[in-house]
């Protein structure tokens, strides 16, 4: 029996290790390759072992001005991405929460219809409406600005839908108790609904930050000034810089990819704890 059990456990672990390797190996190869010089990568392909160029490559990427105009460093692009990611996530949470609050707690003409109109915008992804969106933002003079990068994206049908479902699950008695306790619409929102929504907000923040961070098409169109470019755009521009007598700097591209990964991973790890804690403690 014991032997069987051990074998069974071994098999399980083997499967798990294979799964981890399958997911982690490409990442590891990108990281390992980023510590080699470009010539090695071009000659021998992706590398499995580490080399000695780690500090050189990463420090260079973070501090040297590169890109098409030779104006931006990776650290600037990281900051831009951070602004976009946080602004995108926070903006979406604020807009969708207030929209859902209006839809659930106030009776106004065509409220339900409006909700479904918001909901159907899910059928129109950014790519479909990219030209009119661009035109609107351009006419408002918001090209090459953080507000132009963020504001047009912060309306969220998904977020509104999630908050609507959540608010509807909050017992009516809570609203009535708050009414009797002298809390008006604003106080009820701030004092009761907001703290109860913490878990939802954390969950949405994780998702939306990652989505915002990974935005590619929109920043590409909105920003011609490279000082606004994000890290995701930066990876491409590094790879593109081929001027005859230089090899494409694959090591730097890989380094940028690794750097671009770190903040979303950190956000997920940090907020997931909070998110799970919220789930365990929550009871409405």
């Amino acid at each position, binding site marked *: 029996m014991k032997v069987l059990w051990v074998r069974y456990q071994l098999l399980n672990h083997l499967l798990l290790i294979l799964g981890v390797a399958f997911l982690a190996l490409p990442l590891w190869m990108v990281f390992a390759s980023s510590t080699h010089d470009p010539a090695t990568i071009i000659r021998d392909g992706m590398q499995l072992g580490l080399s000695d160029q780690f500090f050189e490559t990463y420090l260079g990427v973070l501090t040297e001005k590169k890109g098409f105009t030779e104006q931006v460093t990776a650290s600037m692009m990281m900051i831009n991405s951070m602004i976009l990611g946080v602004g995108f996530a926070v903006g979406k949470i604020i807009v969708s929460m207030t929209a859902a609050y209006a839809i659930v707690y106030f009776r106004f003409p065509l409220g339900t219809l409006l909700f479904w109109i918001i909901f159907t915008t899910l059928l129109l992804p950014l790519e479909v409406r990219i030209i009119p969106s661009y035109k609107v933002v351009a006419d408002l003079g918001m090209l090459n600005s953080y507000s132009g990068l963020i504001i047009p994206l912060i309306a969220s049908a998904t977020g509104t839908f999630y908050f609507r479902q959540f608010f509807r699950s909050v017992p009516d*008695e809570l609203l*009535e108790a*708050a009414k009797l*306790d*002298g809390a008006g619409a604003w106080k009820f929102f701030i004092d*009761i609904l907001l703290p109860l929504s913490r878990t939802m907000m954390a969950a949405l923040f994780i998702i939306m930050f990652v989505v915002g961070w990974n935005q590619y098409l929109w920043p590409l169109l909105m920003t011609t000034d490279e000082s606004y470019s994000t890290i995701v755009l930066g990876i491409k521009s590094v790879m593109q810089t081929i001027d005859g007598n230089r090899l494409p700097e694959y090591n730097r591209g890989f380094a940028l990819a690794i750097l671009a990964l770190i903040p979303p991973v950190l956000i997920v790890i940090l907020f997931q704890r909070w998110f799970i804690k919220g789930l365990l403690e929550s009871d409405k």
Partner: protein
Amino acid sequence: MTTLTLNSLQKTYANGTHAVRGIDLEIFDGELTVFVGPSGCGKSTLLRMIAGLEEITSGDLMLDGSRINDVEPAHRDVAMVFQNYALYPHMTVRRNMSYALQNRKVPKAEIDRRVVEAARILQLDELLERKPAQLSGGQRQRVAMGRAIVREPKLFLFDEPLSNLDAQLRAQMRVDIRKLQRQLRVTSIFVTHDQIEAMTVGDRLAVLNNGELEQIGTPMEVYSKPASEFVASFIGSPRINIVSGEVKAGTLHVDGFELPGFSQISDQPVKVGIRPEDFVLESTAKMSLQIDLVEELGSDELLYCVSPTGLDYRIRRPGGSGHKVGENITVSVISEKLHLFSSQSGKRLN
């Protein structure tokens, strides 16, 4: 001094449901009035109208002589205890209790004083820093009451506050609420569908049915002189026996037996109500019944009997009498203890 007056209050919902059909009622200072009735009778709607959570379709709601129909709930000076307590889950007990006072801009020292005082009365002293999720059902119930007490309102409203508790705790809380209300002397309204709760808690009972007030009176008045067949059958456990009969020339004919002494009632078909404990067992009696089932309740026993004509009767006797199933007994009833109701309107005749 607080008096609440309801003048032909009506509530019609947007979908046409006529939930409250004109209720006149006066609630006196320091009194605990119970609204009791089956589910859907409008008792909760009526309470919510008083709290300001439901709009009043027509009629006047007067608190201390001033009309409060259109006053915001927060400004009516009423506090409510909800069925599911409606505690704010993310706030500690202390904050739950002080929240209303903070919104009212009561000075901090005064808030602390009132919270500590309420916690002492309700024995919540040690729970003040806990969150509702860390409390038992009975404790949450007490916090909900504490939240009402600290407001020092003119009127307490209880909306089926005990229905989420187990039977033992419910009996305990019933007593506690009664004592507390006596101690604080705050005018209160208590809604319940449980007639035992209603009888034990209330100074007066308002029995509601179908959006109308059937009867208002002390528990004993309502029990011993029910104003209608509905009240008679709703109040009292085990249920009253109701059988069809007829009054002819001052004599009641019921289930093959005749009882004289009803000369004040004109000739008509009637419903006769007999409380299970109002049967007298005697050998020379008038009704002969066969025992169908015996329920031993310890101090009491309940005999389920069938008359020769096939009608069912419930009879309550002191426990341990040794009656057996299948045994024949003869019983009689005292005319004064009978409740006669009109067959048509269901209203009391005697």
